[in-house]
């Protein structure tokens, strides 16, 4: 399968519908509501960052969209089809350590096509092509453990995008990287996203990261997570590193900081994962 970039850019797929959903986690007496009454839609091709304090359920929402967690109430749809379970149509990138350690980079990336029954030479060709796109040409035969954290995340992104998903779900994908690698990876992501425009939900608790990347930032409250603000960003693209020092950027950053630092907001809770409580 070739990545026909011109094709992808004209697709108008990837509309996400989040319709009055609540998600409860835990069993019996330990059960709690992780998110409550979320209700918003995401347009095809949009890059949305979900911001919120630790444990607010933003990763839970992502897990539900990926099909790994059931919703307790409401409905999740992608292009008007209900989300019923995991699917290569909804690619998810975790924070770290989800590459298959026993597969070389090329085989990790070619996993999706292999599952679809694509022949070896064809899927390797597709894998090499997308690896070039994420800047990893020459590393095809490496094992994940031989790569740096940033390079591993590039492989993760390539492995998901090779399936040409309708939506890309990212759970603090750069959270484990050092500051310098992190800001480089943000630019890498925007570059890839420009070439393979895909509806993206990017969960983070880093305000600057959200403002730098997103078309739109959704701010969530502490548990049970609810939407407290939905901000459309006025910044044009392509984004440059200088953006973070512009007055508009700083003003928005202060506004979100205030939102997240409400006087009644409790201590941050333990982090939830897209697979549930841990």
């Amino acid at each position, binding site marked *: 399968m070739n990545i026909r970039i011109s094709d992808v850019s004209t697709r108008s797929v990837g509309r996400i519908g989040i319709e009055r959903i609540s998600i409860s986690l835990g069993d019996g007496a330990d059960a709690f509501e992780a998110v409550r009454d979320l209700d918003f839609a995401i347009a095809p091709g949009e890059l949305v960052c979900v911001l919120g304090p630790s444990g607010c359920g933003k990763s839970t929402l992502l897990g539900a969209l990926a099909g790994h967690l059931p919703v307790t109430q409401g409905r999740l749809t992608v292009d008007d089809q209900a989300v019923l379970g995991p699917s290569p149509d909804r690619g998810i990138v*975790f924070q770290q350590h989800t590459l298959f350690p*026993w597969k070389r980079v090329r085989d990790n990336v070619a996993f*999706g096509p292999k599952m679809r029954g694509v022949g070896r030479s064809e899927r390797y060709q597709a894998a090499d092509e997308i690896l070039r796109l994420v800047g990893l040409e020459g590393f095809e035969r490496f094992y994940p453990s031989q790569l740096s954290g940033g390079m591993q995340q590039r492989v993760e992104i390539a492995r998901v995008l090779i399936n040409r998903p309708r939506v890309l779900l990212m759970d603090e994908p750069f959270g484990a990287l050092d500051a310098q690698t992190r800001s480089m990876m943000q630019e890498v992501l925007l570059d890839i996203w420009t070439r393979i425009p895909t509806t993206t939900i990017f969960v983070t608790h880093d305000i600057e990261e959200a403002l730098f990347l997103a078309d739109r930032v959704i701010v969530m409250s502490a548990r049970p997570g609810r939407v407290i603000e939905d901000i459309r960003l006025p910044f044009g693209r392509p984004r440059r590193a200088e953006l973070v020092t512009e007055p508009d950027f700083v003003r928005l950053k202060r506004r979100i900081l205030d939102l997240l630092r409400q006087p009644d907001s409790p201590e941050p809770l333990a982090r939830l994962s897209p697979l549930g409580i841990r």
Partner: protein
Amino acid sequence: MTTTRTAVQVPWARWLVRGFSIVACIVLWHLASVLHLSLGFVTFRNVPPPTEVLQSAIILLKSPKLLAHVGSSLWRVFAGYGAAVLLGIGFGFAIGRSRAASDLLLPPLELLRPIPAVAWIPLSILIFPSSEMSMIFITFIGALFPIILNTVHGVANIDRRLVASARSLGGTPAAILREIVLPGAAPSIVTGLAIGMGTSWFCLVTAEMISGQFGIGYYTWEAYTLQNYADIIVGMLIIGLLGMGSSWLLTTLGHYLMPWRQPAVAR
């Protein structure tokens, strides 16, 4: 300071020390047996010196008996251990992946597990009409439990984020078992295989001493009853070599099957 110096030490010097250590052991053995060393609670009066053992070894090497003994021992290990590998990994996968299989299979296994394999010898002689089968069974029992338990451990401890990723990438349950669970559990399985191999040989030698007619354990015990004391040590050394060889085989197999890990099996 000391550690740095050891680290940069030249390799041949280290090999020299290692070689010296072995030579020293042989010399001590020689002295103890030639001088009929007796410390009261332990005596070397009946222990033959290394030279005598070497002569016996050469005689055995030239005789057709060696092949018969080693051959029948190897066959028993191959059959018993092989069956334990197949059944152990199969059971381990079932128990590690399915709650129903775990509830069904685990209770009896947990009850039988604390019984040392050697304690099975009398019963297995009663159960199996041929002593050959009973020895293979003991070898099998010895290897079975470490293989099952390590497989279960490996299978049950697969990082669920890896399984979730595979599902999100379109992996079917069968593909996930093959592409994720099996390689993910492989290090633990190989550890089980290595432990199982050790207990397998241990049980086999014991069983052969009790009920064998051929086999290296039988050879060693026969040497004792016939008072060919040098042959006892020859038998012991051969058992040691066979154990070493099979564990080398497993380590090599581990490296070959798991190239993504550096040192695969612990020694």
